[in-house]
């Protein structure tokens, strides 16, 4: 074979190697899902969602785990979303080029790359110890809110940046103030992009395990945080915020690290639930992005 032919042969064989490399991740994903379905599908059932963890694998369930996850997710969103959107508006619409703006930008980029367990140490030192919130729901949610804040800020900024300047100019021309322009023109137009970012941030939070273990979320919880709705006046209670908790990924971790084989099926069943939540959130995010990109042509 001469050099030219050899080069061509390399070229076409790379086509196959490249295609295989790209698919290998997806193939592994398929193996993982099939394996987990085989291991865990048998444990899924009404009883699995309505039982507390147990010493007997067949009787164990994820009641405390999924309720803990709902608590944590709602609170994390309440804390992180307003703060993240406000920071993004500041950086996109108000900040002038200065050393402070520069510092904030580098800082956010860096925070997005800090390992999640470091956020756990921050939560442990700050919320659990200094603020004496103990190993409570609110400590966990505050920790996760700080963890996802950079994601919310970065994606909101991107959504705001995509809004063409002419829309702002039209609003100013009609006499609107800067904040009115942002509030009534920019934010509504950027909403689909912002929603996508928020959902992706929350899908990250729902699977986080390490930071919550670090702040001391329990691994064996046979009770629920106090219900936020009460039967007596004033019908609402914040007591649950200060109760101990567990979440779905921690429950899975607990079952995986048990020596008894029976718990592996419980772990697999828990993973099925967690993966459905994660995939559903990602699918919704992709769907919003897709729908939006089709609808609007600036």
């Amino acid at each position, binding site marked *: 074979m001469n050099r030219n032919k050899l080069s061509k042969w390399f070229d076409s064989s790379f086509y196959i190697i490249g295609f295989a490399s790209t698919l290998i991740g*997806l193939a592994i994903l398929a193996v993982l899902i099939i394996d987990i379905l085989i291991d865990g599908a048998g444990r899924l059932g009404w009883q699995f969602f309505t039982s507390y963890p147990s010493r007997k694998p067949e009787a164990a369930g994820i009641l405390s785990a999924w309720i803990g996850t709902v608590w944590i997710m709602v609170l994390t969103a309440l804390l992180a979303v307003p703060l993240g959107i406000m920071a993004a508006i500041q950086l996109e619409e108000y900040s002038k080029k200065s050393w402070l703006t520069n510092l904030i930008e580098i800082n956010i980029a860096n925070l997005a790359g800090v390992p999640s367990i470091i956020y756990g140490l921050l939560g442990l030192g700050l919320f659990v110890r200094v603020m004496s919130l103990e190993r409570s729901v609110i400590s966990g949610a505050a920790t996760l809110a700080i963890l996802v804040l950079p994601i919310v800020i970065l994606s909101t900024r991107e959504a705001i940046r995509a809004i063409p300047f002419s829309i702002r100019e039209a609003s100013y021309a009609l006499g609107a103030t800067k904040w009115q322009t942002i509030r009534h023109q920019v934010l509504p137009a950027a909403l689909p992009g912002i929603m996508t970012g928020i959902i992706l941030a929350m899908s990250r939070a729902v699977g986080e395990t390490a930071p919550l273990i670090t702040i001391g979320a329990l691994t064996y919880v046979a009770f629920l945080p106090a219900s936020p709705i009460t039967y007596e006046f004033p019908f609402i209670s914040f007591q649950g915020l200060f109760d101990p908790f567990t979440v779905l990924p921690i429950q899975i971790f607990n079952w995986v690290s048990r020596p008894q084989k029976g718990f592996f099926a419980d772990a697999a069943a828990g993973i099925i639930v967690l993966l459905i939540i994660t995939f559903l959130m990602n699918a919704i995010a992709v769907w919003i992005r897709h729908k939006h990109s089709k609808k609007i042509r600036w």
Partner: protein
Amino acid sequence: MSKQIRRLKERLIEGALLLSALFSIFITAGIIAVLFFETFEFFKEVSIIEFLTDTQWTPLFAEKHFGILPLFAGTLLTTLIAVIVAIPIGLTSAIYLSEYASDRVRTAVKPALEILAAIPTVVYGYFALLLVTPALQMIFPDLSGFNALSPGIVMGIMIIPIISSLSEDAMHAVPMGLREGAYALGSTRLQVATRVVVPAAFSGIAASFILGISRAVGETMIVAIAAGQQPRLTMNPFVPVETVTAYIVQVSLGDTPTGTIEYRTIFAVGISLFVVTFGLNMISYWLRKRFREEY
């Protein structure tokens, strides 16, 4: 009057927005303050020289040694295995997606690969412990149930999408004119990719590698589940090891009282982890910024 109220309202809103943006700086300050405070207390009892040079890490035993080297060896080993898996596959896939694949394939495959990055790491831990380790034991019979090899490989799979996606972005940004010049000289696609596009996109590709490494260094659940909890100074991938992150999880799971030396160790190793990943992230940020300015 109403104009003045409106102006006041705008001012208030602007103040609140500025505070929100500054909050991110408070977070970093908080992380550094918390880590420094406990680490400072830690080094009152343990000398920094022992911490950096002792070859044993046994703070939870009766005879205590505080050498971080075994934990870093565990982190280095698992990260190295992850990198050996992820870089060749990720880069090959990036070249394929950027230079060979049609637009339709690219738009279909990229979001699919991102699913890999969205899977919670505890799931990967299950995968490493209960599927990959037993499979590897069929090839290497002396592989122990907890080892560095299996979580390292699984971590590699996890960071493939980071490397392939970011490298692909960098290659995509290389101007078409460079490729056309090479094609005009009679190059094949592979030659264009390896001799023109990859060198031109090098800083972006390097940034993706470093980001992947940083992710592997900070990864916690996969190693906590599948690598074991035995800190040892070794580069043998077949035996149980413990990484920096897995140690923090191990202590957090126990009931370690506040203010004890055991409690402070997690902050001391945490700050070491923070410094390493911070350095890697800064290099990656700088490289990405540079490649953005180039074209």
